[in-house]
């Protein structure tokens, strides 16, 4: 027996949820599918496949005011921004949920990032397991699975006419009203098979090939746009500036990418990663080497967005494969 909810009951529950909280779910915007605040629950897209941008922006917004300076009464006071709004993210896939768990590592490590923590505390995640896999996905090689419920508060799995419901956390339990779920004799569909990537021992291999000319060759075709970083559910680099805006001074944080020109430029104009090869290598070294050494997990969840979105097909799956191969070749 499984806890079960019909599709109609799910939608009317979501409708209720949206009255007291921000309900965020995948919706269609022209040709794109994006996580957005839902106006009508009928707009929610249940289709398989990943949204064009990841839901990280609800924890690490594209741009966010960290604090502003209050200069009234002749005093100078820094007023920190606060997150008031309770949010429910519906339809988050296991890879994206894992992505948020990965973001937690740098952002919640003490001293934790105050705003990130507030976003995290105010948000409940309702996951949707994948019943089919996209051709660009490789989650099972990156420490998660298409039905991994460990990083959400409630997990749903689509079965005919409705969904099997797993209540994972207390937070998830608190969101569900009594009597909403019924018991039903259904078993979840088998998890789809996901293409695998030889990620075993990748950090060690990255060490070995760090100075390989491979990176310069790979970077030949890289345009150094920020698409990969911005679609990525785990990239968390940002830029910070103090700005005058609407008559007051604010400290703003915005997405930034290691691929953008000037990201590492320092006073005096020197840029230690000005060359294309080292700049591109940074992305993979961070994902597959530095992060692994610091936090013990890869900084990639295998969602495949960068694979799909890169204008020149720089494919992390291929890079992993190549890097594994490079080590072998140099030994031979």
């Amino acid at each position, binding site marked *: 027996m499984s806890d079960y909810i019909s599709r109609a009951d799910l939608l009317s529950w979501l409708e209720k949820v949206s009255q007291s909280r921000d309900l965020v779910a995948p919706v269609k915007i022209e040709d794109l599918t994006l996580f957005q605040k839902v106006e009508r629950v009928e707009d929610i897209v249940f289709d398989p496949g990943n949204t064009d941008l990841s839901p990280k922006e609800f924890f690490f917004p594209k741009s966010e005011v960290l604090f502003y300076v209050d200069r009234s009464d002749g005093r100078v006071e820094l007023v920190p921004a606060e997150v008031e709004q309770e949010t429910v993210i519906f339809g988050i896939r296991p890879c994206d949920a894992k992505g948020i768990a990965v973001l937690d590592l740098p952002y919640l490590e003490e001293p934790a990032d105050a705003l990130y923590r507030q976003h995290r505390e105010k948000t409940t995640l309702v996951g949707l397991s994948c019943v089919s896999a996209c051709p660009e996905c490789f989650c099972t090689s990156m420490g998660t699975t298409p039905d991994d419920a460990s990083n959400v508060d409630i997990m749903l799995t689509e079965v005919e006419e409705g969904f099997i419901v797993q209540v994972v956390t207390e937070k998830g339990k608190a969101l569900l009203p009594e009597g909403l779920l019924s018991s039903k004799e259904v078993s979840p569909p088998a998890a789809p098979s996901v293409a695998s990537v030889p990620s075993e021992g990748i950090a060690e291999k990255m060490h070995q090939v760090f100075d390989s000319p491979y990176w310069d060759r790979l970077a030949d075709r890289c345009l150094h746009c920020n698409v990969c970083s911005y679609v990525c559910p785990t990239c968390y680099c940002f830029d910070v*500036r*103090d*700005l*005058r*805006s*609407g008559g007051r*001074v604010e400290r703003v944080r915005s997405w930034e990418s290691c691929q953008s020109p000037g990201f590492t430029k320092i006073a005096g104009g020197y840029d230690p990663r000005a060359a294309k090869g080292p700049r591109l290598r940074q992305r993979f070294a961070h994902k597959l080497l530095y992060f692994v050494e610091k936090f013990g997990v890869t900084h990639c969840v295998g969602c495949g967005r960068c694979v799909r979105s890169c204008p020149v097909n720089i494919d992390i799956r291929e890079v992993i494969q190549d890097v594994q191969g490079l080590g072998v070749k140099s030994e031979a």
Partner: protein
Amino acid sequence: MAVGHEPRIVGFLCNWCSYAGADVAGTSRITYPPNIRIIRVPCSGRVDPLLIVKSFQMGADGVLVAGCHPGDCHYSEGNYHARRRLAVLRPFLEYLGIERERLRVEWVSASEGRRFSQVVSSFTEQLRKLEPRKGAEVEVSS
């Protein structure tokens, strides 16, 4: 506040002709509306379209570019270059939804104080007939 408001105009005036023309208006006690904020530039050819676009982004209702009459440029040809750029910028801004009338280009010589006053007056009147533009929340380096 809609029609009949006080428009805000950013005026880029070339140092050699139009700025001097504005000066002549002042010293001759010829009045013109205070709606214009004048920025002195070396030449109308120095007016990068970015300056104009930035002005509109920051909520200007109108932008005036004024320079020497064609043939009179202090640098021989700066205003000819300006003329080409602005001839393309104006329809482009209109395409983006900024009315054609909001960008005005005038040749004002150093002796044309009265003409400068007339240009600013008629531009201000023209802009009064349009809806005020909203000043965007724009970042400024602090």
